[in-house]
């Protein structure tokens, strides 16, 4: 459906995107994961036509976007990272403006506005000025304004930035509902939990390059170890650090250590036995399956939040 080929984009001396190629199929919930400044938003901006690539191409349904007529982009819905609404206008007025700019006829537009307001649960607040909305409500309306024209492809650029967990959850549910309606979704985030929860396939971007691509399970399978051990910090642990380091790769976090077991431990039970010998209480030990965070860490040596 969407083919991104060899995109290069440079801002001054900084190479924001370096030979990026991605292929996204119809109906996919496709994630772009990477730390801040990795190049995710630049790639989004190039897809939606906000920024021009230095080289490379983007094609939608086999039509090159650089040469395709403006109408091709009518198939896109874009949820920008910013709240892209007119704050002094009501929700309804905002949606009417964007609906008319998408070229919807009046009756179609009004029906569509009702549907999207229902979806984002803002029907009862549609006449209120957007400036009086909470952050979560604004985010929901931001999404609503992007799907008025029923796009085939929805591009969401970190659509949950700065909102409470409840609102975030509500947006996730809406996006999942849209995905069920066979809308292809591209979703950028630097929260691996979001990518893990929503995306059927994803890429990890770092310093403008794609460093991994595949489904969540495919990515985790890239790791030598699929599980990690987390040991909560406590006063008696300090004296045992050296012994722990001999068991595998030990990474220190604020409240805990993460231990990626050495290959000599074929089975996790062997590792647990060794930990027991060190007299580390069981309540301080947690076994967790590897995440995208681990994948990123493994690939870059850095945490996603660094």
């Amino acid at each position, binding site marked *: 459906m969407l083919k991104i080929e060899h995109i290069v984009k440079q801002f001054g001396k900084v190479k924001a995107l370096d030979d990026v190629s991605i292929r996204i199929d119809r109906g996919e919930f496709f994630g772009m994961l990477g730390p801040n400044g990795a190049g995710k938003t630049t790639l989004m901006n190039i897809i939606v036509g906000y920024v021009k690539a230095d080289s490379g191409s983007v094609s939608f349904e086999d039509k090159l976007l650089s040469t395709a007529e403006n109408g091709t*982009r009518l198939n896109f819905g874009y949820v920008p990272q910013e709240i892209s609404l007119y704050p002094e206008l009501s929700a309804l007025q905002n949606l009417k403006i964007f609906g008319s700019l998408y070229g919807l006829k009046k009756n179609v537009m009004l029906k569509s506005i009702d549907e999207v307001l229902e979806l984002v649960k803002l029907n009862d607040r549609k006449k209120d000025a957007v400036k009086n909305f909470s952050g979560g409500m604004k985010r929901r309306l931001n999404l609503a304004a992007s799907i008025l024209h029923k796009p085939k492809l929805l591009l969401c650029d970190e659509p949950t930035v700065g909102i409470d967990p409840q609102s975030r959850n509500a947006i996730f549910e809406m996006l999942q509902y849209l995905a069920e309606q066979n809308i292809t979704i591209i979703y950028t985030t630097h929260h691996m939990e979001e990518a893990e929860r929503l995306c059927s396939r994803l890429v990890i971007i770092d310093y403008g390059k794609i460093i991994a691509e595949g489904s969540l399970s495919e990515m985790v399978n890239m790791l030598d170890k699929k599980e990690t051990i987390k040991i909560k910090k406590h006063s008696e642990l300090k004296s045992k650090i050296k012994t722990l380091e001999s068991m595998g790769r030990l990474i220190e976090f604020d409240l805990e250590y993460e231990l990626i077991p050495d290959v000599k431990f074929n089975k996790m039970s062997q590792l647990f036995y060794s930990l027991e010998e060190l007299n580390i209480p069981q309540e301080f030990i947690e076994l967790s399956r590897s995440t995208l965070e681990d994948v990123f860490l493994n690939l870059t040596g850095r945490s996603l939040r660094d």
Partner: protein
Amino acid sequence: MRIIYKLLVKDIVRFVNDKTALLLTFLVPAILIIIFGNIFSGNGGFPGVHVIFVNNSKSELAKTLETKLDSSEAIILVKNITDMESGKIINITVGRAVEEIKKGKISAAIIFPDDFFSDTSKSVKIKFFYDPKDQIESSIVQGSVQQAIMSSMPDVLPVLMQRKIESSIGYKKVKKFKEEMSGVVSEYFNVPVDSIYKKEDSLKLFSTAGANTNNFFSKLINIENSQVVGAEVKNPGVTRIVGGWAMMFLLFSLTGAATSLFEEKQEGSLKRLLCMPISRGNILWSKYIYSVLIGIIQLFVLFLFAYFLFDVEIFSNFFNLIIVILASAAAAVSFGMLITALSSSIAQANGIATLLIMIMSAIGGAWFPVSILPDWMQTISKLTITYWSVEAFLQVLWRGGDLTSISFNLIILVSVAVIVNTYAIFLFRKGKIF
């Protein structure tokens, strides 16, 4: 106290880092003081108001007075003009002088008629035609004429007074009195009678102290004032200034409208528009047309207020007024678009706009007439849209000028709108705002 100090340091650091605030704080007053200083300091800044001068009199007195007027710093006498048809330099006639004033090319004319001062005249006769389109300018011209005449009094007054006395008590009695007086002085000071007789003419035989000098003066100098333009205007004061102020407010509000692109960018709504199947040209032109419409409505409301509250006649020349409003709004919006395109933030755009609007208003004729500005400033003023717009408003409201009379102003304003806007759009496409 330490907390206050720390907060003070915080404010100073923020101020120093805010380039726009720095610009407005120091540059605006500095530039305005330069402009005002040049106008009102009198240090060679004021070039004098140009006034047509026609001397049809052959009398010596007229020549003396002409020389006095010539040496006046406040007025510059224009005695001939280039004829547009023949291309030759010709002397100005009275009719031509009046015509030039009506066209707004000059604001006053001083005429010394044939009967300025004859052998039998008891007073000097001067005609003064003027267009009081601006009070300051009119006052300067009238004041300068009076000043020139007053400074000529030592030469003019004795002759006029002698004529006055002769007409009252008779030539023979005056002559006899002078001869007797000369004889007494000659005997007492032991000097020849001939040398005294001449001096006697300039003796102050009558003192004007304590008398009604205005009445006295007017009996000797007969100035026939004739307002050529604007005599029928109901409220000259407001009619004269309304165009200038309208243009200043227009520039402020329309620059704001154009810089609202920055607000839309900050809100994020501009990005959404740019990601929709809409061209950048569409966005810019819609913003341009919107701003022009706002400008037209704003000016129309302003003139309506002037009409209802101050009797400013706007409907007698309504079509031409609307044309000037349209052209001024188009040029003002282009100015705003250019500033927006050249700026990298809304604060910077507002700072530059404030600075330029103040300068344009000061030297473009919105606050005081351009003719009282120094020559170099008058040249610069013609580079401002304020000048062409204010002149066009004056032409329409004050002189009741037709479309032909404002055509040059309209061409300038529309050309500025087209050229500046095209350039602004070119910059927008390359600029930081998008």
